[in-house]
């Protein structure tokens, strides 16, 4: 099934739905990386500030921030799996 809009733009010839879906999956994987990077970066900066202020609480702060980073990572990985399912064309 051709999508006329893409052909009008003159960028892509013979585009079909799966190609557009794959482009969306690739864009999605990139956006996921941005979001997870911002989130884990903020956790890391706060962790370093916290440890610099209170070095005696370093172990607890580190443990807590690993768990929080894992929670963000979990959301990012769910998005990656979804993009992988789109890219592979898995029918659910």
């Amino acid at each position: 099934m051709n999508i006329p809009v893409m052909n009008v733009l003159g960028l892509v010839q013979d585009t079909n739905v799966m190609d557009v879906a794959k482009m969306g999956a690739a864009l999605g994987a990139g956006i996921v990386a941005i979001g997870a990077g911002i989130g884990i970066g903020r956790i890391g900066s706060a962790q370093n500030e916290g440890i610099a202020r209170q070095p005696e609480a370093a172990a607890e702060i580190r443990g807590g921030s690993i768990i929080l980073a894992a929670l963000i990572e979990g959301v990012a990985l769910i998005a990656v799996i979804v993009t992988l399912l789109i890219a592979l064309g898995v029918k659910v």
Partner: protein
Amino acid sequence: MKFLRPIAILAVIVGAIAVGMRFTAHHEGGIFQTLYMHLMPAPLVEVAQHGEHGEHGAHAEPLLKIPLPSALAAFDMDRKGHGHFLVATNLQVFQLAAVLLIFVCFLGVPRHLRNGGGDWTSRMFSGFAGWVRDEMVVPVMGKEVGNKLLPLFLTVFFFILFMNVMGLLPGAATATASIFVTGALALITFSTMVVGGMVVQGPIAFWKHLVPHVPLALWPLMFAVELVGLIVKPIALMIRLFANMTGGHLAVLSLMGLVFFFGGMSPTVGWASSPVAVGLAVFIMIIESFVALLQAYIFTTLSIIFVQASLHPEH
């Protein structure tokens, strides 16, 4: 006598790799496909005698086949054959090896904890077990509940840890890189959450306490939201472990495939690119061996936090 236990540990690991390699079919095709197929769980098949079977394409008969009702078709592993079957794969070899490793490593631990005897392997693993109790379980759950649920979390932690670490060895399969294995582990956490909550708070009070104090009109909506939250927690556990273990292997695979991709252009380019690709793959492998330890910790810690949250809801 001193080296009996380390030798037994090595024997279990080497034996699992040998069994896994002997009873899986070898994949033919391009080099990249051959590498990629090592990520997929391979069914255990009978060893083909030379000359007896056809050269290629002969569908080797699986060693162990259990028929499934058609309602469980999603678990069908033998997609080429007729009907739905549960087929033993090389992942099960490494799961069994992880269970055996737990037995071998921890049989001497109680004796060491009682009277301080035992070889250095027992000392090391009793230190690990003490760390899991003192740093992971007791600070979250407290001493009383923590000591009751400690065996479960110790088993989950070391089972995942051994499977992750064995998956890094050459010729081995990573059992935790299959979503069915991690799904089963997450199901254990989920049933502990629900059954434990119903035992501690009472069967009806658990579902009533799922929702914090809200206006009555909001109650049905909040109940649905909390129900979804209850189910999403183990699903996130399942996908996190699976995707972390698969992702590391995929990154190594992509870097190694780069060598053959460039080698296909011209052998000189392939040789020139191989030091860079192998160096990056070694770097990813170092990260992956850290991730293998970290993910076992994360899975267990999050299980502890989720179970504790469903045992004692916030008021």
